[in-house]
């Protein structure tokens, strides 16, 4: 017998525990993807109702109403209005929070008016007693013309009753509970005459927002009929929207009066106690600073153990593959291109997982909104928003998830500036580059007897990254002429103890998404770069072995040393070697030779490739990739005239170049996707690299 698949849309305000309900219903049986063309996360999960019926549940982004003010929210409307869409639901579940029922019901009444069978889930029932709330479910069901499931996603109470209601979905009313057209009868009458076959409320939604969907588009409507939208100005439409909201709240208040009682004398208030400390004008910032330190500690200290383990595991895997498979170019590609490339992605997992762990806990607990509140004024001076704090912190692990985290910034200008400056923050791919260069050129000595000079340099580079982000944001804010109404409205949710299951699933899904999305790009680039470094035009490359052998015929070299020399010679005459030589005149004033040039080019796969590339160029590949050896080789590297290549001047110049340059193709791809244009990633690429060039040039010329 075939299994019937019921399509269910899970809708709700942010902070109502919608995702917990989703996780309980579907367990780990979820898929996270993207909506076509945009990077809004699309979460789908499956839930078995009976032997013959399964539910496909789509967890829609949290939204306060059907009037979108962000990209995330517009997805909800598009999906719910497109009757012919693949994901158009048979049933809608609106999740609400028992403490914020009044506001949550606003969305519910809107969904009801779309004439989709709708179930109301009242979540967080475990808090009712503490808050002195009592609800008369049958009365509310009657007034709202729906079925209600009272659940607690914390104690799992009532989850089964949702499943029971879903099974019986045919008996759930799809009638609206109030009629929007009553707010302006004449206007809606005219609408009805112009479009007799359409639902009035849907028309109203289309008119009041620029959502493209299905066949009911604004333009064909204009052409086909004499009805003109100009009959209402934007301001008049907004006034009608306010009228609509008032009508909805009036209905909701009347309903709640009948079936919802709050006895405030019984309520205990955790919010005001915690807010007194966490949003305090001094302690609030001190605590936030402490949280930041903890996050950095986790990203850089705690994750070093698993990272070392991953590093050595991939090295042994590569060795094993090299020795097991027959020798040849494909084996080389497998080991040096694919396995090394994969290792370069997987190594970031511990840091990214820690980062998402912290962000997830901070968001679930309600603390993140307080940070947004505390930081907004300061960030706004630089053209950013309080909501830019999360991306800027995330940027210290990787710019890619950071840029995706800008999506909830409503003002397009503030969001764009955040996206543009985030790559300045010191991401973890810069760390290996910094580490080896600092060890090479900064003396390991103490300043003032306390501070280690190398440690101080590293800290300085981190601060430099933040400073560059903030200053360029300030400049962009002045330069960019984007008119953007900033409508900053941030809900301050109740404090909650984060639920382990939610945090775990969130960290798991986000890390997986990073691994797959960014991983594919980094891997593909690694393969291409490997090819460019392993193939070259002309005799010089194909005859490398004989040329080198004839050159060193008088020297006593071991086979290993000879192999290294050949590898190095080949690289010099490979495609990428030619690129390095070509750009040498440009980078010479910065104190770099063509070998560093190659490393700069390969860094576009991911910055940390710098170290691996130099290892190959200085032919230490087979002699072991331990940092010590690379460092020694780099230190011994000289120009033909005997001058050292890595001096304090060229070292600092390189450090500064890496601090500012936009060298990450994967980030550029994400920026293109998020801004929907080539313009902004190109501005980033050329702008940041130009800054890097100038700063490196000045520092080298000044120090040399």
């Amino acid at each position, binding site marked *: 017998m075939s299994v019937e698949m019921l399509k269910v849309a899970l809708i709700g305000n942010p902070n109502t525990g919608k995702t917990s309900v989703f996780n309980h219903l579907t367990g780990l049986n979820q898929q996270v993807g993207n909506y*076509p*063309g*945009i990077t809004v996360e699309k979460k789908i999960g499956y839930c078995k109702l009976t032997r013959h019926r399964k539910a496909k549940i789509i967890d829609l982004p949290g939204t306060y109403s059907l*009037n*979108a*003010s*962000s*990209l*995330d*929210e*517009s997805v909800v409307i*598009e999906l719910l209005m497109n009757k012919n869409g693949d994901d158009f639901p048979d049933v809608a579940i609106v999740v609400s929070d028992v403490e914020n029922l009044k506001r949550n019901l606003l969305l519910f009444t809107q969904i009801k008016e779309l004439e989709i069978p709708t179930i109301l889930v009242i979540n967080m029932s475990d808090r009712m007693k503490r808050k002195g709330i009592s609800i008369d479910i049958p009365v509310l069901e009657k007034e709202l013309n729906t079925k209600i499931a009272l659940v607690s996603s914390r104690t799992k109470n009532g989850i089964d009753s949702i499943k029971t209601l879903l099974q019986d979905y045919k008996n759930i009313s799809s009638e609206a509970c109030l009629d929007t057209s009553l707010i302006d009868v004449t206007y809606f009458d005219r609408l009805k005459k112009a479009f007799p076959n359409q639902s009035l409320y849907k028309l109203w939604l289309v008119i*009041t*927002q*620029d*959502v*493209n969907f299905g066949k009911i588009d604004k333009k064909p409507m204009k052409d086909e009929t004499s009805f003109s939208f100009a009959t209402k100005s*934007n*301001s008049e*439409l*907004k006034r009608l*929207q306010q009228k609509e909201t008032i009508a909805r709240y009036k209905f909701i208040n009347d309903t709640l009066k009948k079936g919802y009682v709050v006895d405030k004398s019984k309520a205990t208030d955790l919010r005001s106690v915690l807010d007194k400390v966490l949003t305090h004008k001094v302690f609030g910032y001190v605590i936030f600073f402490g949280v930041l330190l903890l996050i950095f500690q986790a990203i850089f200290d705690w994750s070093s153990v698993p990272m070392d383990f991953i590093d050595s595991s991939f090295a042994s895997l590569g060795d094993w593959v090299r020795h097991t498979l*027959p020798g*040849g*170019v*494909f*084996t080389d*590609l497998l080991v040096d*291109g*694919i396995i090394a490339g994969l290792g370069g992605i997987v190594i970031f997992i511990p840091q990214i997982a820690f980062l998402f762990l912290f962000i997830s806990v901070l968001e679930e607990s309600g603390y993140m909104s307080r940070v947004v509140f505390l930081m907004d004024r300061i960030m706004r001076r630089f053209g950013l928003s309080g909501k830019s704090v999360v991306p800027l912190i995330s940027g210290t692990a990787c710019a890619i998830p950071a840029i995706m985290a800008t*999506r909830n910034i409503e003002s*397009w200008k503030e969001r764009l500036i955040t996206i543009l400056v985030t790559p300045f923050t010191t991401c973890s791919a810069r760390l290996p580059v910094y580490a080896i260069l600092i060890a090479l050129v900064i003396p390991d000595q103490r300043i003032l007897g306390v501070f280690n000079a190398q440690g101080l340099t590293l800290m300085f580079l981190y601060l430099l990254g933040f400073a560059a982000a903030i200053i360029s944001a300030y400049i962009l804010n002045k330069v960019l002429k984007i*008119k*953007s*109404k900033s*409508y900053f409205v941030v809900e301050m949710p109740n404090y909650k103890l984060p639920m382990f299951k939610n945090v775990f699933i969130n960290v798991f899904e986000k890390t997986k998404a990073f691994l797959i999305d960014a991983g*594919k*790009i980094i*891997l*593909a*680039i690694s*393969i*291409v770069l490997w*090819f460019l470094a392993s193939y070259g035009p002309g005799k010089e490359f194909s005859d490398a072995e004989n040329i080198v052998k004839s050159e060193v015929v008088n020297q006593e070299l071991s086979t290993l040393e000879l192999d290294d020399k050949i590898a190095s010679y080949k690289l010099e005459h490979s495609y990428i070697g030619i690129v390095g030589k070509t750009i040498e005149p440009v980078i010479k004033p910065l104190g770099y030779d063509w070998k560093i040039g190659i490393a700069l080019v390969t860094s576009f796969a991911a910055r940390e490739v710098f170290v691996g590339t130099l290892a190959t160029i200085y032919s230490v590949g087979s002699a072991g990739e331990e940092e010590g050896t690379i460092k020694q080789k780099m230190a011994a590297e000289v120009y033909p005239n005997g001058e050292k290549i890595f001096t304090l001047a060229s070292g600092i110049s390189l450090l500064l170049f890496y601090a500012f340059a936009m060298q990450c193709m994967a980030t550029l*791809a994400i920026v*293109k996707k998020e801004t*929907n244009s080539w313009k902004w990633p190109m501005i980033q690429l050329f702008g940041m690299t130009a800054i890097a060039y100038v700063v490196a040039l000045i520092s080298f010329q000044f120090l040399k």
Partner: protein
Amino acid sequence: MINTQEILVYITVLLAVAFLVKKYFYKPKKTSKSCGKDNCGCH
């Protein structure tokens, strides 16, 4: 043996290039840029 390996290398590299070209230059047909930008829901 070496020939097979060469062929495999070219296939892999071509796949990688094709993937990158698609990632960077492919334009999705349905782009909704009407919201999340400026004045949405703010009429």
